[in-house]
């Protein structure tokens, strides 16, 4: 069953790809739709079935296919494991994935390369399933790389535009930086384990054999991989640019699933990070700063998708705060809830974009409340959820994270997190009010939305509203079902219900004040941010990070390459080689006189050798004395 | 080896040599006379020795004497390899002669339990020998033609060589068909096979059992021997005398005789493989041995009739008009021949009478039968030679390219097909 989940999307991707390549211009809308969205839907149902198997008490499911690599004792099996962590991931990825596929059938309907899109999309699904179902780091790494590849292909989907190619390349290259750390971490882990079996279970058993320093390095290196994939400081710059892809791609890959792979990975290695809390703290600080940083930038953005991208980054920061502090199930819970409302936000944004004929600047929108009521309502639900307004999903997960931060007495992190929550509410409502309530800057005739684009919004809106109840604390009348189900090595929180209420109330207050501020500033009349003063300019230009990267990394590298290409290579290396080759040439010319082209002389040359050998052999035989 | 074996070996060798060599003048004479008759003239008939003309055969012996006594002449432009130039005709001639040596002219004699073949070379792979040695003959042609340093000779030799190459293939393939049919490589065994019957009543002659292969074999042998209508190596209208252009006197005679021996050999091979060899149809050696008395009586009846007819024919034709003063000894020749023939007939009659009714001598019977088979063989051989000659003087020559096309485009595929069909039939019947 597990292998079917992994293989089926690949097969359909291959089939769609071949079908598409056989005749790229032909419209096979129904066929592509049937296969492209049917396969994820089927898989979603299978996933639910498997999930309920675990829900009913099965510890985990294994499936061994074959041995991929066997060198001596070293074996890499191709095997899949479905434990509780991965089953949660599987369920929401396949479920939301299926919804987004259905949504994409509407969104992409009129695009060139409809079949190609679904081929890539299904390919991504397969890669993602491989990542989460892998039972060893190597297989996980393969999935990790394949989702990176799918992401690259989908970001550059509109490859006619050069900027999109640049964005795709940027994502790919920055991910390579992270992946380098990741693979180094795996390698170090493998070396340190000294040849014991290399599956997650076995590693978890043998993790105590590794000394602390090595373990620290492994943790840091693996986290570098997570940084790249999950867009944390300093490897985040690709994520806003990745919005160049079609909106369903942003919804699925760059909001709900792939970017959370880093969080999933850290949770997967929780047995490792439990041993090294100082690295966890580092992760948490990185996450906190990423959250704050992205939230600040988001407040001054005007592109609807970029705002959502920065918001994604900010939410990922929350998740890293959680997993860094050891509240793994809180982190995964936030991944879970975030998937719902962020996918919903993106899909809503996509609906708006489609309705406005591919207009992405929020300050050119406005007053869409009347025209797109369903989108408005669903997005409102999602915004409430992300802003942490009870009882929507985001409230519970975010509250759990902030409570953990508070309880672990890292007040700085807690402070940043709370402030970010306020900012989150502010910029999200800024988006919502600007788009839907503020007066329209110009009258547009709206593009009609197909059914397939609207009802997934409703499904997700229900999810956004209710998903939080799965992880309610005792304080809110729940029993933290999610945390118990996941059974990860969480930190233990000692907080009284009173203080939990206090913290929750504070969060609500921050969210509501952000909402109020946004209403004041943007609901009546909205205007695009101007570069008025220093801070303003700094934020609008995203703290000049891109420029900084260009200055620090790109330009010195170019300079160095220039130096090597124009000075060192031709003068030093080529000089030596040219001198040598000239010498060989001179010698070769002399010897080439032997090559007369006359076969008879060659034969004589051979014969002289044979003749001498014959003399020698005759001497050895004793015929000639 | 017993005395009888040595004696038989010597006798067969001498007989074969005589058959091969003595037929040459006869064939030359036959060729000239038949050509003349076809062209409505008489041909050579005047040369005589003491009045004996034998219908003009003596003319051939006179020719031989002339060629032997001619000056040995080399064209002045032939600077090198005169020895090979002279040797070339010898190669052709001896190859043709050697090829004849494996033809059986009577059935195997059994003397004192020892089977003795009446072949000059008593080998059991006669057809292979013929194919192998027959191919050497053309080398003499090529050497002679090349060393003549003459365009005509060169072209003639090249044509002869390519003819042999192209017709060797259908020849070999049809021979393979016969080898498959007869299941032997031995000429003698082939003749044995042909003494049986085919489909119950037909004589199992090769030409009846394998008509297509037989025709291909005959055509290929015509081509191999350079006889009309495949005369491409020489041709008065195109390349003068071909490869023989520069050859004179006995060198020329060697080529000339080689050609006739080759023709003779070809006839011998054809009758041995296709027309029952030394056997008459339905009369195999066993039949003759068991019914020897009947056989002798039949000959005793047929021989006088045949002799009477022949003498009357000879006396009628060998006379001159009364007005001619001198008959040149014709009357004398006729008289002597008549007496000789009658004597011969009487002797034979007496011998047969003795053997048939008074002596109980199986060996003598066998020898008689062998002699009879020899006679049959010679008659068939001459008949086929006459067929060769008639073809030569009645059918026009093919052009060179037509000859090649016939060989490669028609005969080769046909013979291949024939092999296939034969093999299928053999396998089908065998299983």
């Amino acid at each position, binding site marked *: 069953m597990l292998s079917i989940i992994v293989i089926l999307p690949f097969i359909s991707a291959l089939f769609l790809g071949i079908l598409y390549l056989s005749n790229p211009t032909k419209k096979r809308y129904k066929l592509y739709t049937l296969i492209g969205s049917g396969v994820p839907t089927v898989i979603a149902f299978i996933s639910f079935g498997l999930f309920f198997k675990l829900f009913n008490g099965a510890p985990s499911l294994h499936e061994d296919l074959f041995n991929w690599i066997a060198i001596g004792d070293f074996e890499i099996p191709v095997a899949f494991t479905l434990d509780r962590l991965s089953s949660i991931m599987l369920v929401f990825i396949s479920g939301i994935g299926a919804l987004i596929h259905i949504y994409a059938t509407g969104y992409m309907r009129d695009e060139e390369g409809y079949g190609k899109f679904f081929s890539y999309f299904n390919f991504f699904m397969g890669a993602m399933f491989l990542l989460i179902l892998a039972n060893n780091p190597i297989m996980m790494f393969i999935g990790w790389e394949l989702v990176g590849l799918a992401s690259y292909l989908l970001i550059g989907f509109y490859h006619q535009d050069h900027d999109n190619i640049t964005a795709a390349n940027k994502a790919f290259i920055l991910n390579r930086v992270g992946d380098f750390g990741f693979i180094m971490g795996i390698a170090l882990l493998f070396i340190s384990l000294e040849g014991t079996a290399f599956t997650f279970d076995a590693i978890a058993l043998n993790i105590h054999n590794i000394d602390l320093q090595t373990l620290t390095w492994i943790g840091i290196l693996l986290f570098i991989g997570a940084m790249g994939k999950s867009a944390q400081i300093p490897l985040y710059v690709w994520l806003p640019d990745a919005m160049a892809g079609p909106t369903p791609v942003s919804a699925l890959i760059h909001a709900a699933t792939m970017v959370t792979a880093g969080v999933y990975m850290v949770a997967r290695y929780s047995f490792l990070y439990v041993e090294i809390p100082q690295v966890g703290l580092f992760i948490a600080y990185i996450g906190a700063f990423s959250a704050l940083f992205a939230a600040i930038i988001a407040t001054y953005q005007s592109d609807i998708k970029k705002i959502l991208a920065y918001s994604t980054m900010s939410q990922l920061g929350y998740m890293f705060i959680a997993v860094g502090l050891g509240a793994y199930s809180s982190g995964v819970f936030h991944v879970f809830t975030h998937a719902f409302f962020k996918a919903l936000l993106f899909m809503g944004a996509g609906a708006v974009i489609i309705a406005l004929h591919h207009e992405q600047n929020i300050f050119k929108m406005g007053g869409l409340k009347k025209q797109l009521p369903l989108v408005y309502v669903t997005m409102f639900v999602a915004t409430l959820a992300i802003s942490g307004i009870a009882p929507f999903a985001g409230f519970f997960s975010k509250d759990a994270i902030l409570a953990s931060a508070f309880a672990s007495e890292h007040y700085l992190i807690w402070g940043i997190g709370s402030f970010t929550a306020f900012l989150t509410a502010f910029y999200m409502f800024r988006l919502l009010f600007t788009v839907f309530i503020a007066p329209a800057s110009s009258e547009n005739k709206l593009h009609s939305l197909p059914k397939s684009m609207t009802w997934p919004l409703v499904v997700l809106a229900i999810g956004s509203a209710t998903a939080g109840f799965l992880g309610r604390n005792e304080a809110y009348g729940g029993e933290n079902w999610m945390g118990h189900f996941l059974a990860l090595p969480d930190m233990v929180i000692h907080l009284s219900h009173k203080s939990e209420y206090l913290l929750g109330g504070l969060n609500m207050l921050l969210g509501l004040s952000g909402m109020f501020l946004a209403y004041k500033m943007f609901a009546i009349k909205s205007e695009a941010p101007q570069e008025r003063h220093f801070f303003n300019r700094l934020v609008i230009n995203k703290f000049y990070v891109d420029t900084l990267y260009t200055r620090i990394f790109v330009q010195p590298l170019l300079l160095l390459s220039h130096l090597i290409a124009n000075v060192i290579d031709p003068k030093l290396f080529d000089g030596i080689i040219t001198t040598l080759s000239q010498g060989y040439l001179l010698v070769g010319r002399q010897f080439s006189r032997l090559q007369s082209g006359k076969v008879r002389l060659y034969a*004589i040359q051979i*014969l*002289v050798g*044979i*003749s001498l050998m*014959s*003399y020698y*052999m*005759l001497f050895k*035989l004793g*015929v000639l004395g | 080896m017993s005395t009888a074996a040595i004696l038989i070996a010597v006798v067969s060798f001498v007989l074969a040599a005589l058959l091969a060599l003595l037929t040459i003048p006869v064939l030359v004479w036959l060729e000239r006379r038949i050509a003349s008759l076809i062209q409505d003239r008489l041909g050579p008939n005047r040369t005589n020795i003491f009045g004996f003309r034998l219908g003009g055969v003596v003319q051939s012996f006179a020719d031989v004497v002339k060629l032997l006594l001619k000056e040995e002449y080399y064209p002045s432009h032939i600077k*090198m*390899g005169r020895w*090979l130039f002279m040797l070339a005709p010898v190669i052709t001639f001896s190859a043709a002669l050697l090829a004849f040596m494996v033809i059986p002219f009577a059935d195997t004699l059994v003397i004192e339990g020892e089977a003795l073949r009446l072949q000059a070379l008593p*080998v*059991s*792979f006669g057809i*292979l*020998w013929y*194919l*192998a*040695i027959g*191919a*050497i003959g*053309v*080398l003499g042609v*090529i*050497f002679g*033609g*090349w*060393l003549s340093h003459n365009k005509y000779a*060169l072209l003639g*030799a*090249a044509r002869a*060589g*390519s003819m*042999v*190459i192209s017709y*060797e293939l259908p020849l070999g393939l049809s021979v393979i068909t016969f080898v498959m049919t007869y299941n032997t*490589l031995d000429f003698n065994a082939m003749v044995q096979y042909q003494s049986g019957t085919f489909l119950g009543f037909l004589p199992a002659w090769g030409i009846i059992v394998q008509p297509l292969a037989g025709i291909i074999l005959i055509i290929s042998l015509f081509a191999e021997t350079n006889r009309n209508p495949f005369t491409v190596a020489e041709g008065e209208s195109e390349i003068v005398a071909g490869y023989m252009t520069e050859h004179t006197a006995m060198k020329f005679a060697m080529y000339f005789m080689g050609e006739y021996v080759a023709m003779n050999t070809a006839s011998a091979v054809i009758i041995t493989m296709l027309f029952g060899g030394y056997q008459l149809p339905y009369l195999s050696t066993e039949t003759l041995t068991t019914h020897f008395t009947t056989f002798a009586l039949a000959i005793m009846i047929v021989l006088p009739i045949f002799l009477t007819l022949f003498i009357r024919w000879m006396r009628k034709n060998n006379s001159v008009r009364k007005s001619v003063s001198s008959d040149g000894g014709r009357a004398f020749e006729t008289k002597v021949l008549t007496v000789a023939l009658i004597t011969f007939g009487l002797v034979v009659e007496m011998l047969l009478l003795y053997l048939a009714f008074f002596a109980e001598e199986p060996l003598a019977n066998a020898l008689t039968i062998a002699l009879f088979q020899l006679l049959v063989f010679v008659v068939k051989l001459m008949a086929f030679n006459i067929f060769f000659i008639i073809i030569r003087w009645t059918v026009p020559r093919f052009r060179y390219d037509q000859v090649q096309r016939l060989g490669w485009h028609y005969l080769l595929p046909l013979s291949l097909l024939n092999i296939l069909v034969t093999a299928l039939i053999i396998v089908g019947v065998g299983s």
Partner: protein
Amino acid sequence: MLELSLFFILALFTLGGSITMVVSFQPLFSAFGFLIAMLGLAGLFALLNNQFLALAQIMVSVGAVVILSMLTIMTVNAQVQNLPKEPHKFIWLILSSFLVAPITVLIYTQLNTLPATLKGAETITAKVIGNALFTDWVFPFEIVSILLLTAMVGAIVIGRKHLLDTKACS
């Protein structure tokens, strides 16, 4: 004794023919020498009780190879002026003989380690060879047939005139 003298006569023919072949200036005389050598070789086969091989040797080496090479000589009309001038032919021959001599000795000494008693019990007729060829040696036989076919096709392709455009030599 008869066999020995026959062997010496045939060996003389063979060696004489091959030396004539190597030494002659004119390819025609070389071909004649080759012919003599091949006939001598056929005789040697017959002496070895190998009648089928003897006849096959005559049929192929003489009947096909020599005639074909003669035809080729006539096709290219290799007159004296077209033949390569070989001023130091005999010096070359003698020098290369010195080169080859040790190889000859080596071959001979090595061949002498093979069984050398001529049993000569069985005359190898066409039937024997045919049986061997179509039972144990069917596969090599088929391979050789394919080789022959390939050679034929190759010869036809090489011999066609349009190949003249591609300069194979200088």
